[in-house]
């Protein structure tokens, strides 16, 4: 049996910029799936159950972008620079063409990568996402940033945003947190306050209302799968439909009884949906 995500070694690759990127690499396959993490998340913030399910059929790579967690450098404060840094990571790894799975702020970065360097992006999965400039996206709601934007965030606060209020979703949240913390040795470095500040600046800048910016994603020519939980308080499911409507080749799915972290709660179903999407013929 393959090594579980929670047992993978942390590796490091250096880009010409001098930034050392921390990453984990698992599974086998032709086109690697590169994952882009959420606000303040690091390598340990991916639910191992999801990564293991995705890696059953393909190579999956998680990494810390510039300045995040175990990577060196300074976290940039724009989505555009984060996308350029992620492209630099892919180049440093010599991955060629990749599939992308961006989660939350990582999904903003994935959109930007598909726009900046379309040649290296084969297919895109956008989880808990929104298009740049959409009205109402200027920063998270106060209760959301109040819960996950503090210097120290508790598991309860994390579950409050990433999972729905129902008993079933909260239970799924506790299970996901347990899986994320099952790894006790060689954990990734925690994200810093400077990363939090830079990322939140990037989120707010991305969310400055801009009608005209909505047309940018119409240029994404790759097939895209857009998904969210039906009760996400951080990025409302409404934006999933907006984004999928703006992208010419987009499919959409909303998962029941779940929130921002729907992909961890419904890890088996989501992994199967992603697998089906990534293995479609044309």
């Amino acid at each position, binding site marked *: 049996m393959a090594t579980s995500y929670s047992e993978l070694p942390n590796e490091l690759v250096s880009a010409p910029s001098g930034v050392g990127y921390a990453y984990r690499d698992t599974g086998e396959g032709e086109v690697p799936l590169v994952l882009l993490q959420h606000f303040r998340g690091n390598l340990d913030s991916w639910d191992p159950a999801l990564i293991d399910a995705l890696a059953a059929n393909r190579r999956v790579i998680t990494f810390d972008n510039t300045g995040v967690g175990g990577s060196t450098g300074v976290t940039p404060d724009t989505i555009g620079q984060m996308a350029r840094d992620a492209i630099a990571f892919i180049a440093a790894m010599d991955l060629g063409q990749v599939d992308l799975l961006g989660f939350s702020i990582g999904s903003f970065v994935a959109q930007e990568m598909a726009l900046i360097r379309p040649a290296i992006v084969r297919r895109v999965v956008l989880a808990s996402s929104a298009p740049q400039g959409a*009205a109402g996206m200027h920063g998270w709601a106060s209760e959301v940033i109040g819960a996950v934007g503090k210097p120290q965030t508790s598991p309860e606060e994390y579950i409050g945003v990433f999972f729905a209020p129902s008993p079933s979703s909260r239970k799924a949240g506790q299970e996901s947190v347990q899986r994320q913390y099952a790894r006790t040795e060689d954990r990734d470095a925690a994200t810093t306050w400077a990363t939090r500040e830079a990322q939140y600046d990037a989120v707010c800048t991305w969310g400055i209302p801009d*009608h*005209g910016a*909505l*047309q940018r994603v*119409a240029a994404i020519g790759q097939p895209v799968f857009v998904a969210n939980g039906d009760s996400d308080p951080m990025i409302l499911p*409404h934006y999933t*439909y*907006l984004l*999928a*409507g*703006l992208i*010419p*080749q*987009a499919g*959409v799915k909303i998962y029941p009884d779940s929130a921002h972290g729907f992909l961890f709660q419904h890890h088996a179903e989501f992994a199967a949906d992603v697998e089906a999407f990534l293995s479609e013929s044309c």
Partner: protein
Amino acid sequence: MNASIMQTHTVLVDELQIRYADSGTDGPVILFTSPWPESLFAFRRVWPALARTGRLVALDLPGFGHSQGRADVLTPSAMGGFLGQFITGLGLGTPHLVAPDVGASAALFLAARSPDAIRSLVAGGGGVAWPLDVTGTLADIIAAPGIEVFEDQDIRATIGVTVEPAAPRAQEPDVWEDYVSSYENGRFAESTRYVRSYPERLRLLRDLLPAIRVPVHVFAAADDPLVPVSNGEYLAERIPGSKLTILPASHFAWEEVPDQFAALVADWVTRAEKDAGQ
């Protein structure tokens, strides 16, 4: 009236053979998309009057009329992208788009995603609302379990009856024949893919409507047995600055009340040109 006043040509766009007509007259380009189950000849009655307003171009949408189709283009979302390619491919600049019936939802996707592609839009008479708000045969076609159920139909009978009021066979045999032959040999069943994607695609369209900045004039037929007026009201409520006109027609307004339809388009285009010039 017969079809001879519209000369048709064929052009390859997105690897599809597309039939279109071009008046070649002077003025701003006004692009018309064919209604279903008809063809670009649906505009024969408004053609002479509107030729004084601008250069008229009408196309049979892929999979409709006598244009080649392909399954992946047969959704409002993909068709919107195709319209953008057609406009670029023919070098039409930034036309005014007139999109009745099935073209309406495609044109709205185009307007939302590529606001610089068209100068203005006249759209209506097609299913646009989500939750779905269509009735009669159209609702049945969307609800059918698969497109196979349409493959065995006698198209000359079913489509013939449908288009008879708009193009009576006795008076306009060439138009009637053009409509009916458009959907023979399995083409009707294939064309249903478009409306059958409404439940999924119109859900996406709903959230795009408030972002449309192209000037939009919505029309609806007062007694439409397939697409209730509420679809027009739905658009007018959601598209900023849009205008709604209800025409005294049952569905094929462009043929039932051609003078009013032509006047609506002519006034709208003339005004839009004047606004743009200021």
